[in-house]
């Protein structure tokens, strides 16, 4: 499953990810990482069975871990099938079918939000 790990400012100097991996022996596949001196946000893939354990390890060190289970939603009335979203998505969620309709593969979505800003028609939303 895809998870989001948020590291608050006060813990940014601690090696939270490394410690958690070493402690639990659980491997995570980091797909997006934005970390600077004030804040950290990572998107990673982890096996469903091991999620609880790694979450506990990370949260005990001050990180916030959440499951990314609300992928991008497309408003089909607003969408005009231009395909602007296709090239900005790092996970190839969007593609054209043979009739040039935009197809959305929600399972691949990591909720990064790149496509939301790109869509000229405001047809893409995250969350409810």
């Amino acid at each position, binding site marked *: 499953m895809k998870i989001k790990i948020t590291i608050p400012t006060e813990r940014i100097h601690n090696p939270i990810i490394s410690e958690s991996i070493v402690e639990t022996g659980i491997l995570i596949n980091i797909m997006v990482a934005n970390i600077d001196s004030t804040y950290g946000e990572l998107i990673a893939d982890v096996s469903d069975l091991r999620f609880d354990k790694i979450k506990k390890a990370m949260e005990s060190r001050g990180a916030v871990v959440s499951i990314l289970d609300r992928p991008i939603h497309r408003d089909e009335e607003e969408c*005009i*099938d*231009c*395909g*602007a979203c296709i*090239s*900005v998505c790092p996970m190839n969620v969007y593609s054209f079918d043979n009739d040039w*309709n935009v197809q959305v593969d929600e399972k691949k979505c990591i909720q990064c939000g790149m496509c939301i800003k*790109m869509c*000229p028609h405001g047809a893409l939303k995250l969350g409810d």
Partner: protein
Amino acid sequence: MIKKSIHEINKKIEDGSVNVVTAEEMVTIVEELDAEGAAKEVDVVTTGTFGAMCSSGLMLNLGHSEPPIKIQKLWFNHVEAYSGVAAVDAYLGAAQISDTRGIQYGGAHVIEDLLRGKEVNIHATSYGTDCYPRKVLDTTITLEDLNEAILLNPRNAYQKYAAATNSSKRILNTYMGELLPNFGNVTYSGAGVLSPLSNDPNYETIGMGTRIFIGGAQGYVIGNGTQHSPSSGFGTLMLKGNLKEMNPDYLRAASFSGYGTTLYMGIGIPIPILNEKLAAATAVRDEDITTIIQDYAVGSREKPIIKNINYSELRSGSVQINGKDVPTSSLSSFKNARKIANELKEWVKHGKFFVSMPVERLPAEGLAKPMKQTQAVPLVRDVMSSFIVTIKRDQTVQDAAKKIWENAFNHLAVISDTGELVGILTAWDISKAVAENCFDSVESIMTKKVLTCAPNEPVDLAARRLDRYGVSAMPVIDTQRRVLGIITSDNISKLLARRY
């Protein structure tokens, strides 16, 4: 030699015997029958395009109020319209943005709201005259309440358009969409094989007076569009159509993040096949229509051309830049362009739409000119301080502190033995080094990632960069990275003080 007249074709439309195909279908027909055979068979070829057309707007008449007002300033849902035409006429531009909501909502959105039957708030002000005594007016209207609501689009249906990419290290928000850093993507616009003007590149049948499909209604070409540039293959059209007869499937407001609002227009133009030359022209394929990919990292009118490209490559989903596959995004909708060409085909087939010859031809030669500017654009070299203190990378922190103190100058340019810029050092860096008790060489405490600018860059670009990155100064360097001077926010303030 095939020769048909508009009259003959319209008679066939009337009696239902017309043979009409889309420009996409025409490609294979000409391949199979050749141009002469196709010209014999096919009477009309329909084209279509559906994309962002910023140069669009609504000419409208509100009717007179009681007591009457000569409107001087006018807003529709807080979006300002131009009302300097008579008392209650106005022009609402698609790209005008809301005074209250910014680029989220603009003229294009007001036009779409009107078309969808929504109520729109009007606020108008005036200075008052004997014949028009009223000074302020507030009301709510729908499309029905307007006497006329005519879309008058100064520049639509570009023959083709330059594609966009970004060589810089940050995301650019442009009217070509989000351009990712380091050539991360390419965006393009245009219907390629279905593009109206690309199917009649000599403008033989598309000209002033040509009847067209616009926003789901019948409208007209009223001349060449603004910035019509036929000699470079970038022809444009000026169009009109009645908003009251349009359909929101073919007219959509849009907002480009960080840029502004625009109107997506659906346009379709039928091309009567009067001879085999027109048959051959309408067989144009994506791969025959070439354009360029421009680098939007350069904030100048003359953007560097990264490479030449055709629509087949753009539409394939990725193009090669510097040996790397770069994904492409279309900003116009090919699905809807095709839908329009097919809808127009049905109209012609069922006798609902007749083809026409232009009353005047469009100019087939000429180039759009750049703006005449009478005031020189100040360049970095005109305002920079050519006095800058440099220090070698291997000197000590104490040397640096001494230099700053002696010269009363807050920025030291750190250079290599060969004189190239390698870093920058400020009094703040030195304070930090003292606080942390770190007294190695200058190199260990300097900022290595230095923002720089070139002497021939316009000051406006340098100022935007200082502002974006929140720094107060940038070294000015030549192409060999030798330091020529420094530009500070202070230099720029002085320039502004001179200007106003």
